[in-house]
């Protein structure tokens, strides 16, 4: 295994272990996701709008909000007792540190999404028997890019007193392309449309991932180094 990857896994492993011991952030984020789904169901006039029409938007707004809550923790845990200094002093290349934080964030967001998806099926009464793999693939494709941006922004906003407020303000504009793409693909998947109708959006999602993971890795050292 390449050294950089091993170090990234060490950093990610540390975050995941710490989270599994307390489970606070993970639990709150999943409960939050469930609540957003419930609220969506009541924020709709059932006589005017069928659950199926709202389903793709409800799923992705829930994923986006829950991801934001989950990502806030990545660097707030490092703020306590200046733990970030220890991490920065460790002989780890910044790229590996970024990759580790990104992997940990992806693990959290994926866990929240994995809990929210069955609840979504239950609450919105959608049939995923034919589109499950497609939806999982779309979720992976759409999540990676904005979590990379969120990892960089998370490291920045934690230096302010308004981290929890600033992260959504900065990150939501960056969530627009993945969110629009994911909703479009999801609604076509649920309507059993052919792949050719989604290909354009899938390309945009993939391009977004490649561009923003690369860019985030490049600028990360400017964010953490003094």
């Amino acid at each position: 295994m390449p050294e950089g990857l091993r170090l990234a896994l060490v950093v990610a492993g540390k975050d995941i272990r710490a989270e599994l011991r307390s489970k606070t952030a993970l639990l709150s984020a999943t409960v939050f996701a469930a609540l957003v789904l419930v609220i969506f169901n009541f924020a709709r006039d059932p006589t005017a709008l069928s659950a199926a029409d709202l389903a793709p938007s409800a799923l992705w707004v829930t994923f986006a909000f829950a991801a934001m809550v989950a990502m806030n923790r990545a660097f707030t845990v490092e703020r306590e007792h200046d733990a970030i200094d220890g991490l920065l002093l460790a002989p780890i290349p910044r790229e590996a540190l970024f990759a580790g934080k990104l992997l940990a964030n992806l693990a959290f967001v994926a866990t929240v999404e994995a809990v929210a998806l069955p609840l979504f099926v239950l609450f919105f009464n959608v049939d995923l028997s034919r589109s499950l793999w497609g939806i999982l693939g779309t979720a992976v494709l759409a999540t990676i890019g904005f979590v990379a941006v969120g990892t960089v922004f998370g490291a920045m906003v934690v230096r302010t007193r308004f981290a929890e407020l600033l992260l959504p303000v900065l990150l939501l504009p960056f969530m627009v392309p993945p969110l629009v793409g994911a909703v479009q693909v999801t609604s076509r998947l649920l309507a059993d449309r052919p792949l050719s109708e989604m290909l354009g959006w899938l390309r945009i999602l993939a391009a977004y991932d490649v561009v923003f993971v690369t860019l985030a890795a490049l600028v990360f050292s400017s964010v953490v180094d003094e």
Partner: protein
Amino acid sequence: MSAAVPPPSRDRARAVIRRGTVLSTIALLGIAGVYVLAAAFTPIEARQGVAQKIFYLHVPAAWSALLAFSLVGIVSVLYLWLEDPRLDRFAASSAEVGVVFAAVMLTTGPIWAKPIWGTWWTWDARLTLTLFLFFLFVGYLSLRGALHDRRERARFSAVVGIMGLVLVPFVHLSVYLFRTLHPQPIVLKPSAPSLPWEMLRTLLVSTLMFTLLYVGLVTLRYGIGLAAEAREAHDAG
């Protein structure tokens, strides 16, 4: 690198503020002239009537806002490379002035759209993109306001500036596809500019004045930034 740069003197700050005030005043008088030019010496558009007059403010304001935001993006790239505090001061000034112009653009637009399109707002690709640019730079300024260490603030804002620069084509592409794949009720789009000379003249004069106002306000804001730094350095001893 940037630690060696001495803090700006108060005299220099005063001189820059004076220059910015003069330029902005000239530009504002020029824009007052544009009102007269547009109202009295420019023909009324045949189909849109008087509502079209707002065009002479809306388009130049949009031009200045986009100029401001593009320069923030470019200067952010340069900052991470050169770490020159002047670049950061400029980016901060340009972002702030850009948000003001964007606010002018986003308020004059709906005022025109209501009589012409029949709706204040529509999710047209161009409208959506400028709205997100506005939000992006409001976020940029919020982050700046929440950070106190000058070099940290400069680095962080440069990162947001660069990310924003890269985000624009993605937002544009997705809102454009979103709109064309789901056609809205028919939207009357502004036609290609084949303007009669009197209208083109008013537009060009106005664009010139708005650009001058941009330069003036950025200079003024830059001077205020210099004064704040000089004051901080003075207080620190």
